[in-house]
């Protein structure tokens, strides 16, 4: 049975705390004292076992953390794979926005709210293509924007401008009117433009 001083020496050895002189003392004991050497080996094994126990506990915690974070993990796109992948995601991003917009339109149709703001909003919701049209807002309206899967309302003021991409839809919406066009986009509204360019 080792004395407390020898036990402490072994403990401090594994903690990397021995001075040069103490390390020398340690090596001498290791060579000369079989009981000391056996205790050192036992300590080494015990510390390895505690490390393994700790790591096993950590693995259990990490499993829980992974399960908890499953819905929040950021998607990964490898570098240089933007092209079609981005187009694909944009398309489906737009598609999901269009679905939300459609749901909103159905809601508005079923539960009509009589106000110029909502009327303008309804007229403004449309689909996308690549043709750029510009309109200037003439009245204050309320605009529905989608950010990820949350719908916010945003007040759009006179003088604001907005970009729309669908000529056909724009013509249909603005036919016979001088109304503003409200753009529903993935992120915040840019500007709203008045119809000047549509024939």
């Amino acid at each position: 049975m080792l004395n407390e001083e020898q036990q402490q020496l072994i403990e401090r050895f594994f903690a990397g705390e021995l001075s040069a002189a103490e390390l020398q003392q340690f090596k001498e004991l290791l060579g000369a004292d079989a009981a000391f050497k056996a205790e050192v080996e036992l300590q080494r094994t015990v510390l390895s076992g505690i490390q393994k126990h700790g790591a096993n506990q950590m693995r259990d915690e990490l499993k829980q953390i992974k399960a908890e974070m499953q819905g929040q993990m950021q998607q990964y796109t490898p570098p240089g794979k933007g092209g079609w992948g981005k187009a694909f995601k944009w398309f489906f991003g737009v598609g999901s926005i269009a679905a939300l917009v459609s749901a909103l339109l159905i809601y508005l149709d079923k539960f009509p709210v009589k106000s110029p703001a909502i009327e303008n909003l309804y007229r403004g919701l449309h689909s996308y293509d690549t043709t750029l049209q510009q309109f200037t807002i003439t009245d204050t309206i309320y605009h529905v924007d989608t950010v990820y899967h949350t719908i916010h309302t945003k007040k759009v003021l006179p003088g604001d401008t907005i970009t729309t991409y669908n000529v056909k839809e724009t013509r249909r919406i603005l036919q016979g009117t001088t109304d503003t066009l409200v753009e529903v986009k993935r992120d915040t509204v840019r500007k709203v433009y008045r119809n000047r360019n549509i024939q």
Partner: protein
Amino acid sequence: MSANLTEAELPQMLRNDYRAAFKLLYRDYYRMVEYFVSKNSGNSADAEDIFQEAMIVLYNYSRESSFTLSCSIKTYIYSVCRNLWLKQLRKRDRQVTVKDFETFESIGAEEYTEDNEQVNLVTNAMQQLGEGCRKILTLFYYHKKNMEEIAAEMGYTNADNAKNQKYKCLQHLKTKLTTTNA
């Protein structure tokens, strides 16, 4: 949840609140590792294991007071996972190479613990200890907490009290081990 973790913040966060740090790392980098493993002959279970081991490697390094990141967190995690997965693949085929999708560095990813019969006896003996002893030994030797921190976490009167308790628990563990071996 908070914004992206920076390289300067990560080591400290791992020391102070490793669960919060791991949550951010899973959020920001798990899919990258999952993609890498899936494109290199692995499946989702492999990716989960590799990422988990990388977190343990990272945590082990973080307990050294001198630990700092010499590259971005992304590069670090990618490099460690890459090394771990390559080691796995080379158990099956020594000549295997991997397809890479990110830059990487040569970062050691050695398993921290020995895996032999004696070590397994210790982990079994740990299960026979009371929860208090198991916890104090794990806090001190695995999580590298100091006695003040252990005293606070376990409700001991002071650091000396915690130190005495730790010593007793270690002796208790050794006794169980030598009794098992006898």
